[in-house]
Structure formats: C-alpha cells, structure tokens
C-alpha cells in the first residue's frame, strides 16, 4: 500500500503546472461547444451557467484537498495547486459572465439582484474574495508580501469556499442531496485543518 502511494506520489510531484493550465481550460470550451450544438438541452443558458459553476466548485474542493492529501497519504500536489486555484477563478469568472451576459442580460436588474437576493449576494461575495487570491497567485506577490502575510491573505480561500458551497445549496428550490454533499466536503476539508492546527499547538 505504502509502495503504491509512494509511486503515485512520485508521479504526482512531477506533473508540470503548464499541463494543468492547458488541460484545465479546455472543459470550458467543451461546455460552450455543447451549448451551441444542443448538447446542453433545450435551455442551454442555465445549463452552461450551472456546468461552469459546478466545475469551479469541484475544482475548489480539489484545491482544498491538497494539504490533507499530503498529510494523510504523502501525495503532494503542491506544485500544481496554484494552477488549480487559478482555474477555480477562471471557471467562477466564466460562470459569472454567463449569468451577466446570457442569463440576466438586463443591467438595471443585475445590481438589484446582487443586493436583494441572498444567494446571489453570497455567490458574489465569494467571487470578490477570489479576486485578491487570483491577483496574488504568482511568485512576485509572494516575495512582495512576504510568506507570512501572503499565507494570511490566502486564508480567504476558506471563506470563499464556504460561500461557494452555501451559494450552491441555496440555488436549488428544495433541500437537495448533491449540493449538501459538496458543502459537506468543503466543511470536512476545512475542519481537518482546524484539528491539525490544534494538534500542532498542543505538540
């Protein structure tokens, strides 16, 4: 078992970030192609919006899993974590753009929706938190801010993830299982960190 983990780990460590960027941007084009050719059903706007948002949320969960994965299995994806994080921003931005330009369309309504509709307020807040994270996801920013401040800033990730998960739960008309599972995963991945921190302090 450990041998297998070791081998997976050896491969995972060597995945070049560039490959993640290249492969990672492609699904968006696939969704767009499906939407243009009827592959997303008879209401492609909502479907495209949903696919992009969901894919962003799924990638977000992968990003949050990077630390626990290394801690528990030794498999390190740290080399590609930045790429995965920026892809989260890419998909959530596209999700927002589809909502703005294809779904709502009416500019006077958009601001009202952001203020009046809690699930949109929450989703939007999550997106806003992602902006400083995306902007500082480069070596220059780490140097400029210093590792400690940079890490503090990037704790915003946790808040953004919770907001995204809650937004997803609130979109549905009823309490549905699937969005609860995503939110549950996010909370579990964050709770694992709390425990280490405490263990870390005790040790």
């Amino acid at each position, binding site marked *: 078992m450990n041998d297998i983990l070791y081998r997976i780990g050896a491969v995972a460590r060597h995945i070049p970030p560039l490959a993640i960027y290249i492969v990672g941007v492609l699904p968006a084009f696939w969704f767009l192609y499906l939407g243009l050719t009827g592959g997303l059903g*008879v*209401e492609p706007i909502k479907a495209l919006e949903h696919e992009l948002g969901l894919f962003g949320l799924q990638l977000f969960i992968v990003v949050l899993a990077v630390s626990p994965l290394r801690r528990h299995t030794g498999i390190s994806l740290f080399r590609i974590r930045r790429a995965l994080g920026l892809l989260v921003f890419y998909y959530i931005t596209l999700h927002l753009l589809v909502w703005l330009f294809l779904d709502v369309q*009416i500019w006077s309504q958009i601001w009202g929706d952001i203020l009046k509709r809690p699930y949109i307020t929450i989703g939007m807040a999550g997106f806003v938190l992602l902006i400083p994270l995306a902007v500082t996801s480069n070596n220059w920013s780490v140097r400029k801010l210093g590792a400690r401040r940079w890490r503090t800033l990037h704790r915003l990730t946790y808040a953004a993830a919770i907001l995204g998960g809650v937004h997803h739960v609130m979109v549905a008309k009823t309490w549905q299982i699937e969005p609860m599972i995503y939110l549950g995963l996010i909370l579990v991945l964050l709770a694992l960190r709390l425990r280490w921190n405490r263990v870390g302090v005790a040790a």
Partner: protein
Amino acid sequence: MPARWKNDLNWSDVTPKAVYLSRRQWMAGAGALAAGAFAGPGMAGITTVPSRYSTDEAPNALEEITGYNNFYEFGTGKEDPADNAHRLTTDPWSVTIDGLVDKPGSYDLADILAGLTLEERIYRLRCVEAWSMVVPWVGFELATLLDRVGVQPSARYVYFETLVRPEEMPGQRYPILDWPYREGLRLDEAMHPLTLLATGLYGEEMPNQNGAPIRLVVPWKYGFKSIKSIVRISLVEDQPEATWNMQNPREYGFYSNVNPEVDHPRWSQASERKIGGGLFARRVPTQMFNGYGDEVAGLYAGMDLAKFY
C-alpha cells in the same frame, strides 16, 4: 507533412431525428400501450376541435415540451422526467372525486372522458423559474367535470392530488417534497373556462413526463399550480394545502398568479426566457396574468395581489 486527422462523420451519422423522436414517443406512450389500450384514441391522434382561447403564438417543439420538465416525482433535474417517466402505468387510472359534491366516487378515466369533446388549447406556460413555453394542450374544461358531479353550495375551493407510487416514481423515494403533491384553486378559478383538464398535447395522448394521463392546466398561474397525474379532486370549504406553498410559503403563494411586479424572493419575475431560443435567447417582459388578464383579472378585483401572491 503528416496527414491531418479528418473528420469523416457527418450529422447524418448521428441517430436520425425521426428515429430518436419516435423512440421518445414510444417511451412516452409505452405505459398506455403496455396496458393494452388498443382502443385508446391516442395512437391514431386525438380528434379535437379548435378553441377561441388558443394563442396564435407558435408552439414549442414536441422535443422541448417533453424534454424539459419539472416533475419532481421523477427527479429534480429537468431531464429526469423524460428519462424516468416511462415506468409510470397510466392505465387503468381512476380519479376519486369527493368532498362537497352530489355524486362522489371513484371514476374510471374512460368514464370521465366518455361523451366529452376534446379541444385543442394552445396556451402560454410560464414557469415560476422565469422560463416559458407555448404548449398545444388537448383537454376539456374542468368546469364540465365539476358540473357533472354536482358542486354543493358550501364548496369554496377545489383540492387536487397527484398519484403516489414510489415504485414507478423514483423521486418519491426521497422526501424532496411532502408527498403526495397537492394543489388547490378557488372555486371560481376552477370554474373559469380557461381552466383545463388536459389529457394530451400535440394531438396525442399525454406523454408521461407531462403529467399523464390527466393533469390540470391553469395558464394564468405559474406552472407548478397545474398539477400532474391527478388521482383525487375534492371540493372543500376551506383553502386547501398546496405543496410548494407548504414547502416555502414566502416564495410560493397559494394564488401564484403570474405577476411581473411581484418578485420571487430569489429572482425577478419581470421577464422570462422562452425555451428554444438557444444560447443567445433574449429575455422578454412577463405579462400580467401571463397575458390572460382580459379573461381573469376580474376574479381578483379589489384584491391586493402583492399580499395575495
């Protein structure tokens, strides 16, 4: 120079539209067929008469009407009903009519339909989720049935229930909603000539995913009021329970008339998107009472529709 990969597949290599359409229709009609309803009028097309209540707007394609449905009994996804509804047995089917009526009883669907003239009613359908369609329903006025069973003077509301059969309705295995699905109308709304009991669409028997074999259609209200696969109609004195209203009374009122001025708490109802416009479909303004104001506004004279939403 290496030879580039060339796509030698054409659209003609994809399953032809006629084949997949007929496959879907077969699945939709399988319930009716399997039960041996050879005498059913649906197979050869239902004879209908046109109606002055029909809109002259172009109906949505059959594929759109049968492929994009909210029917949580078969799952919460829009395509779940089309995928799962073929399991539903719609023959035999009976409807219990009870409460404040002169002739209560369990009526076989065939007896309900006997001697009725079915009309084609092309109605706009406005979903509470801010999308819309135009559907060529086949049906008859609910008032015809209510007159036949004799509504007693003390009755003020009509209550409806959908079938509960989790073996055939997989969505009912989960408490997504408080089953059975139930809905209600005020008696004057129920007796209005626009209020339809529909048994088909596009001149054929009702596809299962659209609420076979018999469903309500109230075109000036949000779609969820138009309860599907009805097994019970009760005449009652007090305002009855309605599923979405029970689920979330702030978001779904008992009346739920289409009203562009009263927003759903989570989205605006001022505009809608007609299904079928593709990725760049524009929104269009939603009409008061879904455009049926001339016929039905009088039912609500003097009522504050922001309060009784």
